[in-house]
């Protein structure tokens, strides 16, 4: 279709951006034909980058602007291997050049506000981005206010979350390297739902793998607010028994009440740690809240699963961890990628006057490293249920690894390479 439209006149407009900068921009698509519409995407993680890639791949005549505050993408999946000392942060970092090469406008900026009625974004550094349809993929932000002293502890940098990959990841690695042999690493896990259900338990494995080799008198203490391990429970328990006996100690129903220095105060005891790693409770990212889209439990964004549009504002598609999950749907990078493809197909249909796909499918695969080589998975397939207006897992489908194994260790790394390439086109 772009070929048919090519040759129509290309129009240009002048706009102002930032501190007096003036840019000449194509009002229509980068293909040279008229634009099918302008889609602005906020957040260049698994959801937003995938949306940009698939919109541009499936409909090159759509103007796609991806706004991301960081220069590069740093993957949460595989980042626990960085914490364990088995990978470098560079190994989980990728750039946006592939998306730029295919015609996505990648804007490095912070979005200050969404003008929902006016259909435009205000950038924190100045300038505006007007859109016909908006995609928000803001990930999570934290609710540290639930734990006394946590905000200050996080601000000081002494207590780390490392639940957004990047500087926090390398800082936690540095804390572990600096810890004495015989020290205690304590990991506090919030009540579900939170980003990446098996992630904390994988982290305990990766920290323990480092301690086992370099600081065997130390301990990895898992303080879980949940009544049990929330994902792959039997497989993690077996890994701790097989590989990390005496190193990993798991305590269920351990709700963190207060943080003081690196001491974790629970309801009935104080746990003194050398390295305290707190995963705070989470909610939809700030921009979803400031745009007025958080309408579920005061934490998440309800979405229409056929289009991924917010139930609070039509025309704004919300992806990934920020959404109020469908039953048994995990908050994961893989799932955010799948959300993005549903949204991309819907946006193209909406912009071209086609019916929206009434039978979308999404699926999830999550690999967790229990040693540097042995991996376990959980997988699920979710079909749209028209009666319930939600995604439901298919009975009898999905499941867990029978046991940790090295074949899936190799698949896990290939999964990462493939999904990073799928979202970033490079």
């Amino acid at each position, binding site marked *: 279709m772009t070929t048919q439209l090519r040759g129509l006149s290309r129009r240009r407009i002048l706009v102002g*951006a930032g501190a007096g900068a003036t*840019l000449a921009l194509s009002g229509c698509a980068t293909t040279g034909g008229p634009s099918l519409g302008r889609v602005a995407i906020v957040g260049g993680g698994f959801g937003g980058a995938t949306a940009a890639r698939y919109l541009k791949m499936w409909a090159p005549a759509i103007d796609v*602007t991806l706004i991301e505050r*960081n220069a590069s993408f740093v993957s949460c999946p595989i980042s626990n291997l960085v914490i364990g000392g088995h990978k470098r942060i560079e190994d989980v970092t990728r750039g946006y050049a592939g998306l730029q090469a295919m015609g996505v406008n990648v804007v490095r900026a912070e979005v200050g506000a969404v*003008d929902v009625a006016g259909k435009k974004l205000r950038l924190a550094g100045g300038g505006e981005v007007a859109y016909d349809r908006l995609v928000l993929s803001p990930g999570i932000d934290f609710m540290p206010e639930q734990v006394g002293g946590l905000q200050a502890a996080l601000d000081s940098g002494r207590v780390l979350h490392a639940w957004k990959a990047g500087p926090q990841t390398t800082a936690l690695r540095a804390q572990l390297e600096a810890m004495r042999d015989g020290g205690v690493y304590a990991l506090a896990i919030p009540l579900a739902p939170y980003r990446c259900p098996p992630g904390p338990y994988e982290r305990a494995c990766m920290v323990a793998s480092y301690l086992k080799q370099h600081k065997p008198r130390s301990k990895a203490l898992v303080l879980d607010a949940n009544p049990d391990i929330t994902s792959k429970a039997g497989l993690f328990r077996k890994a701790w028994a097989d590989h990390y006996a005496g190193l990993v100690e798991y305590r269920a129903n351990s709700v963190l009440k207060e943080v003081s220095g690196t001491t974790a105060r629970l309801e009935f005891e104080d746990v003194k740690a050398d390295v305290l790693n707190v995963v705070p409770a989470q909610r939809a990212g700030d921009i979803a809240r400031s745009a007025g889209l958080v309408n579920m439990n005061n934490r998440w964004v309800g979405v229409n699963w056929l289009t991924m549009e917010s139930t609070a504002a039509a025309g704004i598609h919300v992806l990934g961890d920020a959404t109020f999950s469908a039953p048994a749907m995990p908050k994961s990078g893989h799932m955010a990628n799948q959300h993005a493809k549903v949204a991309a197909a819907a946006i193209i249909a909406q912009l071209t006057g086609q019916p929206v796909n009434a039978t979308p499918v999404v699926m999830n*695969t999550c690999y967790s490293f229990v040693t540097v080589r042995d991996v376990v998975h959980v997988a699920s397939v979710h079909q749209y249920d028209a009666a319930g207006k939600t995604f439901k897992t298919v009975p009898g489908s999905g499941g867990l690894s029978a046991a940790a*194994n090295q074949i899936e260790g190799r698949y896990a790394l290939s999964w990462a390479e*493939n999904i990073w390439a799928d979202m970033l086109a490079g």
Partner: protein
Amino acid sequence: MWAAAGNSARHCRSYYGQAPAAPGRGSRTMPSRVFCEKDPMRHTLLTCTLTAAALAALALPAAAQQSTLGRNLAATCANCHGTNGAARGEMKPLAGVSAAKIVAAMNDFRSGNMPATIMHQIAKGYTEAQVEQIAAYFAAQKPAAK
């Protein structure tokens, strides 16, 4: 009608735990498609959109819509098997593989005839009709150059 931005101190920490670029730097590194509040393209864009929509409607008969469905379904495989089936690393490429072969493999995964780490669980999540659409889509893709 601007929605208020969140607490700015929290914003600084939020995404991936990194502080945003300094304002001056941000405005230098930001050039791209940024529109003015009063967008003179508004009217023109509307015209473009309507024209394109009309063309799209003409250009998408039932067969095309069917392939769009196959495209959407096949995209659920791309996380592991690569975009349009062009897999990297140890994952099996699906681009250019015959539809019959993909359907047969999925049937074997489903029945347990083909041993697998994960595909026996995933195969059971798709209907036979969906598998056929996925297979047709991948069969029509160009295999990645080796």
